[in-house]
């Protein structure tokens, strides 16, 4: 995989794709990640699933992972310029939306009533995230050990409110120790 990618994706296309994701990924966070995975890995086949998931793991440790995974894919395709095209494209729709809503808010001091729209989108977004999780599980979680790690990470995050960075650092240490041990005792 160290060869340069065969097809050179234009910066304009990178910007457009992430602008569209930034304009529709309501729900934020993993909803955005699921859209990026579906668009860039499944449909456009710009990168492999495991590469995307590595980027997501780095992104979660570094902070706002929805933005970070966009930056990662952009960089993967076209270096620094690609990374910037992707991150600016992704943030731009939210930026304009908040600018307009802020202007209205500081004029009238009222929030837009969008609750009923969100009640419609939230369940569908859960569906979107579940489809992404199921796809990742099918191809990347194999064997008892892997399922144990997936279950432990799920439980730690869902039931015990452990932060994602801590979970990923713990998983990395475990995984590094295991790889080390197997190498020494091969």
């Amino acid at each position, binding site marked *: 995989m160290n060869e340069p990618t065969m097809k050179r994706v234009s910066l304009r296309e990178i910007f457009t794709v992430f602008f569209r994701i930034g*304009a529709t*990924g*309501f729900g*934020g*966070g*993993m909803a955005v990640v699921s859209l990026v995975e579906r668009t860039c890995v499944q449909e456009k086949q710009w990168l492999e699933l495991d590469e995307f998931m*590595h980027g997501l*793991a780095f992104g*979660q440790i570094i*902070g*706002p992972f*929805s933005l*970070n995974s966009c930056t990662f894919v952009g*960089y993967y395709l076209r270096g*620094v310029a690609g*990374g*910037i095209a992707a*991150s600016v494209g992704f*943030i731009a729709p*939210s*930026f304009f*939306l908040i*600018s307009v*809503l*802020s202007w209205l*808010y500081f004029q009238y001091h009222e*929030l837009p009533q969008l609750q009923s*729209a*969100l*009640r*419609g*989108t*939230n*369940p569908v*977004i*859960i*569906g*979107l*995230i*579940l489809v992404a*999780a*199921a796809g990742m*599980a099918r191809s990347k*979680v194999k064997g008892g050990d892997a399922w144990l*790690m*997936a279950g*432990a*990470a*799920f439980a730690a*995050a*869902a039931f015990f409110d452990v*932060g994602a*960075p801590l979970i*990923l650092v713990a*998983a*990395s240490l475990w*995984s*590094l120790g*295991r*790889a080390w041990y197997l190498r020494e005792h091969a």
Partner: protein
Amino acid sequence: MATYLKLAWIFLKIGLIFFGGGYVLIPLLHRIMVDQFHWLSLKEFLDGVALSQLTPGPLAMLATFTGFKAGGFGGALISTVFIFLPCTLFMLVVSSRYEQFRSMELIRKTLDGILPAVVGLVAAAAWSLGRTSLFSARDFLLLAGGFLLLQFTRVSPMIVILGAGAIGLLFRFS
């Protein structure tokens, strides 16, 4: 101009202590924006958090809202650019080293070894969102419909999401 420089400097600092992201950010931003600089009242701060969560962007879009209050559209732009500058630069550096990392066998095995944990975290996001937004049979019906459409057809997820939002508005979901 002084306002812009101040916004740039403060949001750059917030961006630098961004690591961990998400909800650890709220108390921190509250202290800076409400107590320290009086850019926002408490009510405005809470409404700003709600507004940022309406958008696909991260919670840190709150910077746009605060910047708008403190310095209009220019303030919003500067605050947004500077809060995201550190994490974006850091992510670019990590991405640029990625291929090199991955050519080392031990690191490649470690990275591949944590993929199940990543899957667990993605599933946990669905769980958390479900806990706060799945209440009625209608919600579960929408969830099933969305899942089936996205799993078995090639319909664009954007259409599914916007369509579900339109249905919610049209039928005045409460």
